[in-house]
């Protein structure tokens, strides 16, 4: 099911009497979510991503704008008539019911012509449980399950009615690191198998990048960028998106463009054609550095972390906005740890320029 958000806006009345301005949680959100895709809503906490999810679920009503599922306008429909499945952040499994009863619960609510016989309900519940691989645990209570198992039960309960859209609110935040990796693969697999349009919310960029078909990066209620994870990573529209995506995070410097040359400090580090002379922010991905004896960019070396797969070079630079500059280079490089400074050449594709005021990205031509 295609999900269309048109000018979706949600304002919350301010409770603060001294500052009666409305809080805009979601501001003019426009997006057409293609059918059968897995979409990650991504942003720091308080950016309106959960509000967006709740708007789609119908648990809260938008201030203005429309929500369409395919051709149906569901803006004014209550949640139960939208055909959604929602997995809550803390799962919200009914603690007094067994796993089986929990999964059956949505089916037992069906009325009229949708009403199912008991064997039909059981069949569907077992099918949903099999899909998430918890069919062995049907008679346990949620309290007797691990976090990951509870998560699966919650997904099974959301899927048992075969919703048109599946919504997941921070699905992995309550799991430990190892389980998180496993569960996100699982969510991907379930989504692929059921082909249900799935929207999930997360503040963890790695999580969103790894499994989403598309990610939506939000900040303070405003959508910053929508696109395939790799595209967003490779060409962020502004400094915020660049900083938000990637671990280790991008290195940001103060720089100037003078005569088609990019200067960081006094080093002319890169040729940038077609950019007017101005002050800029320079973002350089950690993998954008190449160690080179006569490289143009000089930093004072403060340490080297060997990871096995690659080497992380930690250095400092006066122009850096981060306390340290972190660059990742291949293990074939030999670094003199005793040296006071280290010189780099930069990969142009991994270097982004941002406007000093607007923080929008400035395109430049790469001269070879």
């Amino acid at each position, binding site marked *: 099911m295609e999900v269309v958000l048109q000018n979706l806006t949600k304002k919350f009345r301010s409770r603060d009497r001294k500052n009666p301005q409305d809080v805009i949680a979601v501001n003019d959100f426009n997006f057409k979510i293609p059918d059968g895709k897995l979409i990650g809503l991504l942003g720091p906490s308080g950016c309106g991503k959960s509000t967006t999810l709740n708007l789609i*679920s*119908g*648990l809260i009503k938008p201030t203005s704008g429309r929500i369409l599922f395919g051709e149906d306008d569901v803006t004014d429909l*209550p*949640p*139960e*008539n939208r055909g*959604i*499945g*929602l997995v*809550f952040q*803390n799962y*919200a499994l*009914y*603690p*007094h*019911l067994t796993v089986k009863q929990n999964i059956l*619960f*949505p089916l*037992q*609510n*069906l009325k009229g012509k949708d009403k199912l016989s008991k064997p039909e309900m059981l069949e569907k519940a077992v099918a949903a449980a099999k899909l998430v691989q918890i069919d062995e645990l049907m008679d346990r209570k949620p309290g007797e399950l691990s976090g990951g198992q509870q998560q699966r039960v919650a997904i099974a*309960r959301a899927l048992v*009615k075969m919703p048109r859209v599946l919504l997941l609110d921070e699905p992995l935040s309550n799991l430990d690191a190892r389980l998180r990796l496993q569960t996100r693969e699982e969510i991907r697999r379930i989504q692929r198998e059921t082909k249900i349009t799935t929207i999930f919310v997360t503040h963890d960029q790695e999580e969103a990048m790894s499994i989403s078909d598309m990610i939506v990066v939000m900040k303070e209620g405003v959508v910053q960028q929508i696109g395939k994870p790799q595209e967003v990573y490779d060409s962020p529209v502004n400094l915020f998106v660049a900083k938000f995506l990637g671990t280790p995070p991008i290195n940001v410097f103060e720089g100037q463009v003078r005569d088609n040359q990019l200067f960081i400090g006094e080093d002319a580090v890169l040729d940038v054609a077609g950019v007017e002379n101005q002050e800029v922010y320079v973002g350089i991905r950690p993998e954008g550095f190449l160690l080179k004896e006569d490289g143009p960019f000089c930093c004072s070396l403060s340490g080297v972390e060997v990871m096995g797969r690659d080497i992380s070079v930690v250095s400092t630079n006066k122009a850096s906005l981060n306390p340290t500059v972190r660059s990742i280079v291949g293990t074939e490089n030999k670094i003199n740890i005793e040296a006071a400074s280290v010189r780099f050449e930069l990969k142009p594709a991994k270097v982004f320029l941002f406007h000093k005021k607007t923080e929008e990205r400035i395109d430049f031509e790469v001269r070879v």
Partner: protein
Amino acid sequence: MIRKKLSNSSLKGWLYLLPAILFLGAFMVYPLIDVFIYSFEEGYNSASQTYLGVGLYNYSYVLHDPYFLQAVKNTFILVIITVPLSTGIALLISVGLSSIKPLRNLLQTVYFLPYVTNTLAVGLVFMILFKKTAYSDGLINLLITWFGGKSVDFIDGPYWAKMFVLCFYTIWVVMPFKILILTSALSSVNQVYYNAAKVDGTSKFRTFMRITLPMISPMIFYLIITGFIGAFKAYSDAVALFGTDLNAAEMNTIVGYVYDMLYGDSGGYPSYASAAAILLFAIVLTITCINLLISKKNVHY
């Protein structure tokens, strides 16, 4: 070494428990055992501390005493009517209170008022409501006659009328506490369960039956257990309404019977009183055990 340490710490534990054990032993356990012994000593005289013999005569006497049977009947009617009704009505009111927003605090205070109101003041109000005096028939009778009914004497009249007043009074008195407990229990149910139910299209009634009730079942169970025990021990309410001569009013309760046997006009029979008290203890114990058994299935912690 380890053993020494262990006994040392357990000694400390006993030391901390000592004050409570002493008090409970002197004022709870010892009298309880004493009452149990008295109940088998026939014709015990507390002044001379003598008795005629040992046997089951006390129980036989009490069980054949029409006043005791009347008291048992009254107590059971009171328990069976007031415990479910008061808990049910309290639940309804609490659900109502927690589903409204405006005036909630005011109404909560209003519903809690009976709990902090002086018993004498409450008695006065009930008098105005129900008692026939030379000047008026009471407010309730006024209403009954208004609608074309026949005036009833609730305080000195037929048995059912008196029982009605007693039940009404009891329910009204125990209600505030139950409402207080239930509203707090209801507000402690996480909103996320209601959201989940809403997304699944659960009807209001089903949400209440399948989610709210099980979630607050421990509190309801607590109220039912304490309600049963409290109602079995009812006495002062009957006195407040019908005066001290409850046997004549046919409104005696088991505790009232025990009291009368000890200190009442027909009193001075500690053996009979003890036997009645032990019988009451047995009844309460049985009912509580049954409650616990039922709760195993229906209460979710």
